[in-house]
């Protein structure tokens, strides 16, 4: 579903600040894979996600989604395949638009916008049910500006928007990191439910070890722009936090000493 082949990306090329954010990353996700990416600061997780989304153009290598090479396509032309939930709830939703208007835009992700009404009785009804299913008391707020929602409500909406039209690939960019623990659990639960029920292929970047252990069928650990450890299936299921922390410490010690 997602194939990365030898991705390289160096920032500040030719200056003393030169930093290799991606140093030859190859990765293949099968349809239905839920991969969790972990790694320390500067490991290249964000750059990897941005390279897949189209925000960062790799210096070398290719990105293809569902068999289509999208390496040279900008973000908005990849949106037909890829949906993304940002860490910042403000980044993934439009605050000056209403809840229903945001959902209308999300429903047409990657499709042409025309001069038809953005909202009508039929799609409003659908959005109403969608929002009600989130269980955050937002069903009565369909016509309220998203800017008036709480951060947690906004992030739940961002997630609902991302999975509204079953994307080929769902990118989750530490999407629970900016939320309070209770809301984070709620959004994570909703994420798993959506991924399972729609059989989505997902790639989640997280700092949360518990999430990395608990969720997904694959785990990918990055360090200094490379994938240094991968686990899946039974191996992934057998991982414990202690095991992971140990590995994390080794890798970060190595980073410091190396």
């Amino acid at each position, binding site marked *: 579903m997602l194939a990365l082949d030898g991705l390289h990306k160096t920032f500040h090329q030719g200056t003393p600040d030169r930093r290799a954010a991606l140093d030859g990353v190859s990765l293949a996700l099968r349809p239905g894979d839920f991969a969790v990416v972990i790694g320390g600061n500067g490991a290249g997780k964000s750059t990897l996600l941005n390279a897949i989304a189209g925000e960062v153009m790799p210096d070398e290598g290719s990105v293809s989604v569902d068999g289509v090479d999208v390496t040279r396509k900008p*973000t908005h032309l990849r*949106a037909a395949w890829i949906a993304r939930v940002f860490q910042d709830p403000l980044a993934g939703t439009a605050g*000056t638009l209403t809840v229903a208007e945001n959902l209308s835009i999300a429903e047409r*992700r990657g*499709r042409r916008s025309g001069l038809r009404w953005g909202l009508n009785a039929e799609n409003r009804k659908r959005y109403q049910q969608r929002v009600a299913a989130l269980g955050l008391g937002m069903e009565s707020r369909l016509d309220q500006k998203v800017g008036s929602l709480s951060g947690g409500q906004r992030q739940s909406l961002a997630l609902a928007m991302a999975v509204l039209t079953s994307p080929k690939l769902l990118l989750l960019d530490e999407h629970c990191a900016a939320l309070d623990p209770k809301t984070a659990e709620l959004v994570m639960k909703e994420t798993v439910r959506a991924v399972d029920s729609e059989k989505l292929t997902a790639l989640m970047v997280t700092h949360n070890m518990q999430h990395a252990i608990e969720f997904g069928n694959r785990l990918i650990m990055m360090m200094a722009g490379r994938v240094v450890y991968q686990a899946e299936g039974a191996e992934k299921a057998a991982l414990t936090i202690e095991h992971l922390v140990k590995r994390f410490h080794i890798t970060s010690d190595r980073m410091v000493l190396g």
Partner: protein
Amino acid sequence: MAILQAYTNLIPITLLQGVIYAFVALGIMIPFRLLSFPDLTAEGSFPLGASVTAAVLAAGAGPVSATALAIAAGFVAGASTALIHRVFRLNTLLCGILVVTMLYSIDIRIMGKPNIPMFTYDDLFSIFLGNWSRSLGARIALVSAIAIICTTALYCFLKTEMGLALRAVGASQSMARAQGLSTSYYVILGIGIAGALSALGGSILAQNQSFADVNMGFGVLVNGLASLIVGEQLIGRQTLARQLTAPLVGAVVYYQVVSFALALGMQPSDLKLLTGLFVLALLGLPLLRSRRTPSDALV
């Protein structure tokens, strides 16, 4: 009493002036409020609209086609500012200054000279109002009707799929890109529409005073901003309908206030200074209040 008399006598004229400048206020609202793209192209698209109208009328065409071409020219002017910004990533205000400066030469090229008297040509007023075309009341009614049609059309557009997309681009570019919206496309479209509205204002003003001049844009941006702010204070901006009504109401009220101040004896030449201070106070004071430490103010 004499002051009040002087003011009330001028109400019809200032009312017409206010409705004409409402187009500029509406045009300024789009970049500042819908697109988060601070833009001053209005200062150039306004006289451009007047220049194109005068030149087309002088060439023998009718006022409807002259006005339509003025609108199209304004769209191109606004779109150019947005395009320059998207291509070169220059500051949006600098892009506007470049376009406004270049338009000065272009206006004179279009007209062939710095100004054109239009007394001998038919205009929108003479063809739509006929015998009533000298009546200020009829003129106010006609310009108000055009303003209401434009505002309604803009409101409807902003409720379409494309309109939602345009507003989303203004609200969050990262969200817009992730949803598959080309931010460049919508910024160019939106700033183009803004330029078209300002040019329409310039076109109508030129036809109202039967005179087009390359310098008639001077200060329209700040007046338009002042109108917008006044309107937002009165109408609010909680909903799209309010946000779109605010510039209209604001322009009408603003020009009444100015007229009253002039009746009280304010020097007309002091007007720009006072308007500037007024805009500065309304835009700047809330920002000043929100800063925690004095050192932040310098950044």
